[in-house]
């Protein structure tokens, strides 16, 4: 009779041969996250004479920064409110009423969701700039007034332009929740004698309230972290927000310590807000809120059907129709402010952008390279991470899940500050190369990709793998024969989400780029300084085309739209 294997050899024979793969992936994640954040924290308190709080004191006693902080609070709060005011009725109309054109409205909300906000901001500069803005010109022509109707370079203008691209967060939260509340709950109350308003007040509203508040918080977070729109609209209006302020710390000579000292509280505030939002939703992640629930009764709007549709389309006019057509017009016009007549029509902007202006070509190449590289590496990486945590392959797999989702709380500029500090010194000198942008994008897009991948593996029962193992396949072989083929569409979707995120990224790129490593978003931003609106419009259209092509790929692969899965 053989004795059971003992000792080191026995132990090793029992160890999974695939274990190094999982451990390496998990360690890679830890390094990716820990290195920059540790440097950020350290630099914020470091000085030549040891630890100090001087940088914090310096930063927060600075009146300019205090003003920027206050502006950010005002901006974020109003964006949250406007997003709820727009997103909630839209969600209710499409989820519960017989408003016509529901699928069109949904498609447009999705379009608004994926539109890079800074492109919208540019378009609105051309639409509502005080002097040359198209709407203001029309206003003057019609009324003979000498004053502008609206000035987009103002706090209300900024709130408006940010909110038209953040309300989809509220929309998604509320539409998903409404889809879950069976109307028999409401009908039960009606049966007990409650009037329509009473039902709305006592049943529907309390059930939807957590979704409303968490939609509000998500919008606030977006506004808080946004760099592009404030830089385009607030700076000309003469005020800073916290993100533009942090960015300005990097103008020569760079004040990294101060930037770090501002970044840490911003990071904590974001984390806190997200924590509140999670608590509100309870343990049910909104991404997983599916279309379960009982029968839902459609509310008949009768005479209000078309006015309601008109309201929805008015919102979409602001978010999609007007800005998109403005960009299209500027792309084909010699002078964007003039009517698009035969004389004013040109393809010169395209040849200028693609062939003459060196910076744009290089930027398009850089962006595509980074997009493909980050999406490919990222999709593989998040798939590994999601697999590790879903199948509990390493001790501490909960930490893997936590770290993979953690970048959600890191605003782009904060991430950039941390990466700048971490990779401008040994052992990894990456600043000045595309690699630092790669790492920034990988980190920033990881949560989205991870959430998608986790859902993919959750949908593949581990029985399917176990069945392969017991028949003679090792874990890696099962991964190849069973898991990968079944996860393919989910991984492609994760690839697309990361790609979309990368090509539109501005807030981290703007701090991390160098003259040789400019990307499309950065060039668009630079072109503004030169007044090259035609080239901006062309690049914007390219970006939108890439985005929508990728979005349609996701829809084809997953058989559902992007709103259902993305946060």
């Amino acid at each position, binding site marked *: 009779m*053989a004795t059971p294997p003992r000792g080191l050899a026995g132990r090793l024979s029992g160890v999974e041969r695939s274990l190094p793969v999982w451990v390496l992936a998990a360690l890679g994640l830890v390094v990716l996250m820990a290195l920059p954040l540790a440097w950020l924290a350290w630099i914020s308190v470091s000085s030549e004479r040891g630890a100090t709080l001087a940088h914090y004191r310096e930063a927060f006693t600075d009146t300019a920064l205090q003003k920027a902080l206050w502006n950010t609070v005002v901006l974020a709060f109003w964006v949250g409110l406007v997003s709820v005011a727009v997103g909630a009725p839209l969600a209710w109309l499409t989820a519960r009423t017989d408003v016509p054109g529901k699928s069109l409205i949904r498609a447009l909300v999705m379009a608004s969701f994926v539109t890079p906000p800074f492109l919208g901001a540019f378009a609105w500069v051309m639409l509502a700039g005080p002097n040359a803005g198209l709407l203001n010109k029309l206003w003057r022509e019609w009324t003979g007034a000498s004053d502008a109707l609206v000035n987009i370079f103002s706090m209300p203008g900024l709130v408006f332009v940010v909110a038209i691209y953040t309300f989809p967060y509220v929309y998604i939260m509320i539409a998903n929740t409404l889809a879950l509340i069976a109307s028999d709950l409401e009908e039960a109350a009606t049966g007990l004698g409650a009037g329509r308003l009473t039902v709305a007040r006592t049943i529907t509203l309390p059930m939807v309230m957590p979704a409303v508040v968490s939609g509000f918080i998500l919008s606030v977070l977006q506004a808080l972290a946004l760099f592009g729109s404030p830089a385009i609209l607030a700076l000309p209006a003469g005020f800073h927000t916290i993100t533009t302020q942090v960015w300005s710390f990097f103008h020569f000579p760079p004040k990294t310590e101060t930037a770090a000292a501002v970044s840490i509280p911003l990071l904590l505030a974001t984390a806190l807000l997200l924590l509140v939002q999670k608590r509100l939703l309870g343990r049910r992640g909104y991404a997983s809120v599916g279309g379960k629930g009982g029968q839902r009764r459609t509310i008949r709007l009768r005479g209000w059907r078309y006015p309601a549709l008109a309201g929805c389309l008015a919102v979409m006019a602001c978010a999609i129709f007007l800005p998109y057509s403005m960009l299209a017009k500027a792309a084909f016009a010699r002078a964007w402010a003039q009517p698009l007549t035969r004389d004013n029509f040109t393809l010169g902007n395209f040849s200028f952008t693609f062939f003459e202006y060196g910076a744009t070509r290089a930027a398009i190449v850089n962006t595509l390279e980074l997009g493909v590289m980050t999406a490919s590496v990222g999709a593989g990486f998040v798939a590994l991470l999601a697999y590790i945590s879903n199948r509990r392959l390493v001790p501490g797999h909960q930490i893997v899940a936590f770290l993979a989702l953690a970048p959600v709380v890191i605003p782009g500029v904060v991430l950039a500050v941390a990466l700048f500090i971490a990779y401008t010194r040994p052992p990894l000198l990456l600043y000045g190369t595309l690699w630092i942008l790669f790492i920034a994008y990988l980190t920033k897009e990881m949560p989205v990709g991870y959430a998608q991948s986790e859902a993919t593996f959750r949908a593949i029962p581990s029985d399917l793998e176990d*069945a392969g193992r*017991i028949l*003679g396949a090792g874990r890696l072989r099962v991964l190849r024969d*069973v898991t990968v083929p079944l996860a393919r569409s989910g991984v492609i979707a994760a690839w697309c989400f990361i790609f979309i995120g990368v090509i539109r990224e501005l807030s981290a790129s703007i701090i991390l780029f160098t003259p040789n490593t400019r990307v499309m978003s950065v060039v668009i931003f630079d072109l503004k300084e030169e007044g090259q609106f035609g080239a901006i419009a062309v690049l914007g259209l390219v970006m939108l085309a890439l985005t929508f092509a990728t979005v349609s790929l996701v829809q084809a692969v997953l058989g559902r739209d992007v709103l259902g899965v993305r946060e």
Partner: protein
Amino acid sequence: MPGVSLRALTLRYGDVAAVESLTLDVKPGELVALLGPSGCGKTTTLRLVAGFLTPEAGEIWVGDRCVSSAASVVPPERRRMAMIFQSYALWPHMTVAQNVAYGLRFKPQLSRADRDRRVREMLGVVQLAGYEDRYPGELSGGQQQRVAVARALVVEPEILLLDEPLSNLDANLRDEMRLEIRRLHETFGITTLYVTHDQAEAMVISDRIAVLQQGRVVQVGSAEEIFHQPRTRFVAEFIGRTNLLEGVAVSPDAVACGPLRLRVAPVGLEPGARVVVSIRPHAVELVADGGVGSASNTLDGVVKRASFLGESVDYEIALAGTDVVIRATTPATRRLRPGQRVTLHVDPEACVPLPDQPAS
């Protein structure tokens, strides 16, 4: 053909013991059912045997190989076992033939032609010839089940593990597949562990049944032994319906239940010990009032309720002079009415005394 031996296996999840010092021997070529309610540790036991889990203590031996111990576990792919899952676990992206052939990929000594032939033969055995190119999603539940069986058997495993393989089938199909699995076992003679919570399934399919309770084997035996000679109150209650009468032993073969005195199967009771007497409903004979019963174990009662079940009638009978209600099942040929006085008789051999431990 080796047997399987589980020796004092223990596995805890946190503080909860899923399997606690579990010992069981499966002889070569034997089919043993692991039977128990949900949460009794039967699936955990099966996954320990398969090598998906590592025991905290104890060992698993296959023939003269130790395949699992706390120190070392042979991975599932090197155990020469096959498993049939509750969900069937068919790969949706592979055809029936590809599913069945998968395990043969890891037998390099087989030529491609041999593989194809064995797949064809096995699909013939499970009556799925002609379905080679279908995908699992295009098959009925019963057909999927057969593919899962074929996929497991085609590799000629030393040990076959089945995890509630029939629980997703509807009742008629389940009855059919029970006999089918038994037939396949008799044909191939593979040492088999079969997890189920369905006692009827366990009785039809297995050579022996191991009843599990809270991670331990509480009784192992043939279906008849377990049904007629349950060793604990839990086993008596879990396998079939039974009447349990609490009492005190008065002699090695007699128990006093209140004013009643029952002669019981002779197991050598300690007088004065607290016991529970298990009496199967079908072992209770009913004699209409005035009928002559035999001398011992004859009780008087009144019919409280009679439920006609087609082939049989189920009675609830209140025993005279006590608050005990006993259930009796008789053939449907003769009917008693509620309120009618009856005399009951129970063969002492059918009165099984059990130690009176609550089912904890």
